[in-house]
């Protein structure tokens, strides 16, 4: 309430002193009481009177100034327009452009930017960014994928007849020389060598797995059947009776000729192999009686040659049948005509020479291969000095130079290894079959401690394998009488360019190692023998000491003489 009373007064008219006097109490106001009015009011009881004693606070909110965001995209076909210029309006853009061009700095900017731009434009024109380069270079060879798949199964049509479920175990598989078919011999024999099942052997056509192309009927169980390398229709087989028989497919199922029992082997014939000859009709056979006989198909009445497999170390000893080692597998390489190899039932591999005159010349080499009979024996098609043997639970590779031991060998497998074969096309590959039906492909250049690939081909044990000359197919015969046609992946079929050199190096290295070990072993043996001989002549020790003392005394005397002479 701003009340101001401003006044002016002359000094002369300043008021006189107040003349105070008392004025008695005067009534200001009087209101009489009126009880009647009270009846209009009622005493308020209770009266709610809130009392609050506390700090008085107030709420106050403050926020910072909010920034407004907008998201816009820019089309940089022509960028940098300021916000206020409407890009779609050609007049506005023209105006803006003219304004910029009139700017002083514009010329300088443009001049400094243009050389850089020139450089990049010319670079761009020189190189085409979107062209595909390096199309003319060959693609990298893909990672090696080894695989093996069963292409076909040729089931024994006579299976189920003979004893016990499965069928007749396959005793031999052989491809015909044209590679279009293969001959299979089945042998189901009991302990007395009497056949349990029908004796028929079949020639299958590789294309049709439903039925065999031809049946051959041997007089006894056929244990080995081979096709002649020259003639498609001629086959030779070894029988369980010890005889050998020859078939001509054109003539029919019965053998075209068989050897008489007295001229044949004394026990069953385990292996038959065709030999290199002008007519292509000569073959040789071997069996557990320990004798190898050579036959000519035109006259099977008597063998043309025979050799007792009995290794003798001196030329004075004669070979005797009693000591001969039973033959379990034969090996012959057509390019080395006079030499052959024999795997025995003792686990020895004996190299033979037909042209030898004395027994030592006839069986020059002997290798100790396995603990049981040698099941497979084959030379490497490119490295003829090296051959593989399959025996107890291992696969071994031998070199003819190292007589003492194998050059390479696989670690003992879980199950017996029943057969193996080299691949004709891939130098370092060998396929081995196991008694649990698995096919193991061993590639000596990849890994030597385990197979490069192991696949289970069948449930029953696999017994025989024969590779097709093309190298991609392999026929595996099983214990149930089925033949599985297995196809190898391309990486397992082909050899690379360096493979030969590399494999040579590998085999060279291994054989050198073996030779070194052999030499060392020989030295040790020599030393041992010398030590034994040396212990008999112990009295030579004192003369040595005496000689030493004498020499020392002589020297001392000489020195003294010289010194005295000085």
């Amino acid at each position, binding site marked *: 309430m701003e009340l101001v009373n401003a006044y002016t007064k002359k000094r002369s008219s300043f008021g006189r002193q107040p003349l105070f006097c*008392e004025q008695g109490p005067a009534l*200001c106001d009087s209101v009489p009481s009126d009880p009647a009015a009270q009846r209009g009011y009622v005493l308020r009881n209770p009266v709610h009177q809130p009392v609050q004693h506390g700090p008085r606070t107030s709420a106050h909110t403050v926020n910072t100034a909010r920034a407004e965001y907008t998201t816009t995209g820019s089309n940089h076909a022509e960028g940098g327009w300021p916000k206020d210029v409407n890009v779609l309006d050609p007049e506005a853009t023209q105006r803006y452009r003219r304004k910029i061009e009139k700017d002083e700095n514009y010329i300088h900017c443009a001049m400094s930017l243009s050389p850089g731009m020139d450089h990049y434009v010319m670079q761009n024109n020189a190189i085409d960014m979107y062209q595909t380069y390096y199309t003319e270079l060959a693609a990298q060879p893909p990672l090696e994928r080894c695989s093996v798949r069963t292409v076909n199964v040729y089931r024994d049509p006579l299976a189920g007849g003979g004893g016990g479920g499965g069928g007749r175990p396959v005793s031999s598989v052989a491809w015909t020389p044209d590679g279009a078919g293969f001959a299979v011999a089945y042998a189901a024999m009991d302990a007395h060598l009497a056949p349990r099942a029908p004796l028929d052997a079949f020639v299958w056509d590789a294309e049709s797995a439903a039925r065999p192309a031809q049946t051959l009927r041997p007089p006894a169980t056929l244990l080995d059947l081979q096709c002649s390398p020259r003639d498609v229709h001629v086959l030779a087989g070894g029988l369980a009776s010890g005889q050998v028989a020859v078939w001509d497919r054109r003539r029919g199922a019965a053998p075209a000729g068989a050897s008489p029992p007295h001229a044949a082997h004394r026990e069953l014939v385990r292996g038959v192999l065709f030999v290199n000859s002008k007519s292509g009709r000569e073959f040789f056979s071997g069996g557990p009686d320990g004798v190898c006989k050579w036959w000519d198909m035109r006259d099977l009445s008597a063998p043309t040659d025979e050799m007792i497999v009995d290794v003798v170390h001196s030329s004075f000893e004669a070979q005797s049948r009693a000591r001969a080692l039973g033959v379990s597998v034969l090996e012959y390489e057509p390019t080395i005509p006079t030499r052959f190899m024999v795997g025995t039932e003792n686990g020895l591999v004996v190299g033979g020479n037909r042209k030898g005159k004395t027994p030592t010349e006839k069986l020059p080499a002997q290798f100790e291969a396995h603990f049981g009979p040698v099941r497979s024996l084959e030379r490497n098609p490119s490295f003829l000095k090296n051959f593989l043997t399959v025996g107890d639970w291992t696969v071994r590779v031998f070199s003819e130079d190292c007589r003492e031991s194998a050059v390479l060998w696989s670690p003992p497998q879980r199950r017996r290894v029943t057969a193996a074969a080299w691949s004709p096309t891939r130098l370092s590959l060998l396929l081995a079959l196991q008694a649990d039906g698995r096919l193991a492909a061993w590639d000596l250049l990849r890994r030597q401690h385990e197979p490069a690939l192991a696949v289970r081909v069948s449930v029953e044990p696999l017994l025989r394998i024969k590779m097709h000359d093309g190298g991609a197919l392999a026929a595996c015969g099983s214990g149930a009488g089925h033949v599985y046609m297995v196809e190898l992946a391309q990486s397992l079929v082909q050899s690379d360019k360096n493979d030969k050199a590399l494999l040579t190096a590998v085999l060279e290295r291994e054989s050198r190692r073996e030779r070194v070990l052999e030499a060392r072993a020989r030295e040790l043996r020599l030393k041992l023998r010398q030590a034994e001989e040396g212990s008999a002549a112990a009295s030579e020790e004192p003369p040595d000491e005496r000689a030493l003392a004498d020499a020392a005394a002589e020297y001392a005397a000489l020195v003294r003489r010289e010194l005295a002479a000085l």
Partner: protein
Amino acid sequence: MAQEEDEEDFTFNVEEVQNIVRDNIEFCLGGNIYSHSRTPQWISVITEKTLARLNKLNKPFKYIMRMTVTQKNGTGLHTAAAYFWDITTDGTCTVRWENKYMYCIVNIWALALQL
């Protein structure tokens, strides 16, 4: 005459002041029921208006204003005042206003400014 005007100027005009006060009370309290909580507000309004108008009279007086608002519920009220002043120059004025629910008594004392 100038002297009379001066004298008029120096004396306290009871009528005029009563009219002023009565107008203000009427304006503020007219027709209201007595409300204890609103009374301070009424009083402040009335005093402000009254003193403003008294000041506008431009008279050389000190004013003292006392206001009493009483609820009409049967109580009695008696006020009196005694003075020791200069009878010729100073004066007093009392206004009593009432409606159905309350009384309003306003005392104005005007004391002359000697200087």
